[in-house]
């Protein structure tokens, strides 16, 4: 289609470009600018050059935050993808009972993060929580799941997995509809067992779904804030201070807008790098498939 005027395509793009520029590019540029200043929101900012970046590195805050965020993401992404896939394969059957279980698993994804966090705080309470009481009845060892620096981050990651697995299950369920029944029947006739059928028939068709679920849950895990804010406020001892919460804490608790801005810039670069890596891997994989076809 040929535009009636050469300006038209740009005019059509303008609303999106405007919103994108106003709410994404401009704040990012602003953050980059502020990252070279020491500023507390109330008194005039003073230029400090690269000091914010230097102190982020020398204090170990950056390494700690990146490390915690990556380990949280690793648990969330790997478990939610695996569990979602397992649930999808197990529940991809007709019948009311299966429909009910599918709906129940997905319902956790629909509930707000705050409600989920409060519910789990009640379950995980170190003294009177449901989990603690049950473990004690069974004479099993129990811990302060949210109060122990060694396990708090894993606990949060598992709560997040519980919350978002329903989502990956639904995507995998949709992916499963694309697997032709005839392929399964042919493989079964050739003597393939259930595991062989899964690895050679189901999984190859599900790969795009897996890539999609992997990417979205990675993004979701990097954006985690509510669950930290409600359940641990970054503690105990910074054990659950992951990226977005660290930024929040620097701005609103420590009165350090400059340092928070430096964190934002680093966070952006990190995400850009990860997305680039993922795109590269995805393109290479699809390129390889095209090459063999």
């Amino acid at each position: 289609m040929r535009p009636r005027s050469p300006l038209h395509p740009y005019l059509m793009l303008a609303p999106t470009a405007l919103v994108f520029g106003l709410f994404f590019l401009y704040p990012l540029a602003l953050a980059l600018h502020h990252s070279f200043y020491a500023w507390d929101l109330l008194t005039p900012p003073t230029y400090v050059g690269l000091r914010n970046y230097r102190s982020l590195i020398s204090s170990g805050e950056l390494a700690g935050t990146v490390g915690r965020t990556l380990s949280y993401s690793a648990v969330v992404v790997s478990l939610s993808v695996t569990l979602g896939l397992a649930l999808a394969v197990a529940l991809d059957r007709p019948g009311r009972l299966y429909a009910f279980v599918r709906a129940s698993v997905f319902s956790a994804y629909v509930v707000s993060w705050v409600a989920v966090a409060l519910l789990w705080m009640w379950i995980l309470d170190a003294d009177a929580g449901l989990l603690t009481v049950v473990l004690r009845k069974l004479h099993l060892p129990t811990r302060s799941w949210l109060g122990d620096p060694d396990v708090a981050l894993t606990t949060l990651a598992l709560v997040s997995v519980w919350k978002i697995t329903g989502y990956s299950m639904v995507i995998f369920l949709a992916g499963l509809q694309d697997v032709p029944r005839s392929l399964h029947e042919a493989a079964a006739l050739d003597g393939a067992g259930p595991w062989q059928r899964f690895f050679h028939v189901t999984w190859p068709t599900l790969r795009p779904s897996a890539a999609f679920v992997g990417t979205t849950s990675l993004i979701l895990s990097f954006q985690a804030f509510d669950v930290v804010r409600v359940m641990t406020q970054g503690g105990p001892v910074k054990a659950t201070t992951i990226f977005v919460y660290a930024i929040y804490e620097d701005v609103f608790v420590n009165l350090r807008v400059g340092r928070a801005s430096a964190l934002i810039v680093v966070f952006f670069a990190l995400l850009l790098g990860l997305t680039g890596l993922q795109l590269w891997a995805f393109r290479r994989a699809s390129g390889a498939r095209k090459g063999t076809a």
Partner: protein
Amino acid sequence: MKRLPRRDALRALAGSIGAALAPSGSAGCARRAPDGRVEASLWFAYGGNNRKVLLALVEQFHAAQDRFRIHATYQGDYFEALAKLRTSLAAHAGPTLTHVIGEVVPYLAEAGVLEPMEPFLDGAGRDSLDLVPALAQDRGFVGGDARPLVALPFNRSTPIAYYNKTLFQDLGLTPPTTWDELRLVASRATTRDGRWGFECPIDWWFWLALVGQAGGSLIGADGAPTLGGESGVRALELWQTMVHQDRSMKPPPGRDYNAWQVANTDFLSGRAAMIWTSTAFLRYLEDNAPFPVGAARLPRGVRASVPTGGTLFVMPRGRPRLEQEAAFAFLRWMMAPAQANAWATRTGYIPVSRAGIAELEASGYYRDHPSDRIALDQLACAEPWPWSPDLFRIEREAVQPRLEEAVLTGKAARAVLDEARRVAVEP
């Protein structure tokens, strides 16, 4: 249903966006309530029982006069409310009146965002308010009387000890008066089946009490943060010993007031025999405990010492004068003996009005409610806050997170405080 023509709908939408963006009130035009009264906004951070008491007082203020109205909005706990206040000040959209913890007053005052209050006194001078000096700006801060008046006390407190009277009676224990007794009593009241002898939020406020009791102070004579020096270390080591060696103290999980709430809940449910928390929870704990609640002064180290807590009211700059007058009228009314006492006796905070305290004494209130006296008596050993703009950052960034680290991980107190001192002087 009649459909709105699209053009009209767009026009209405544009109008409402325009109205929302227009600077409301900051240009010098005071807001008015529908009944024509001048309306001042109040951002407050009291939850639970204290929130109810405040709102009741606001209603009473509306009934007591017909010129002003106070629009009170709950803004979360002290720290959440402070985060909102700072953001709103940066956006020139702050409230007419709000309240902040003492530690943050010097910072806000030095940043120039607080309205001096003396001009609202009509030449009467700040002494005319007849406030308890240790709770007010004058004596609550080092050199506070020499600075322009920017903060007025309302809900002020000190930490006190609460104990389960029934349990103490059964065990033949009395509230500890020294650190040694504290360890002894806590150990004796601890059981293997999940009852802790002692519980105290790992919070800088209680650590400061211990630092003072160990003979130290936060800031040195030269104005540099010493964090108590050796006293700071001894204070932290007392907690570490009770948590890891005696196993008689539970550090409640959660940050900030979440941990305070846990301590309260544990005390009420009998899982902690004795807790340290603010006198502000006196009524709440008495009303909700299934056992008689005892209150006691904090124990002495080499001396007796407590910090003051709670908040002071401040008026952010930039609101129209009429609104500020409304806010100040409310403040003045709240600080009068009748209201100050109503607030204090219904919550547990210390009355801020000197005349009010005299009235309570005369009426025999303290004879009938000895627990209400504890915090008041402790004012004799209350440590004033240093007037340092860095005080708040020292608290939030340097000290608070590291106390938790030392107590939970058992990391050497001295190393933790050395690190905290380094962060405290970081520009």
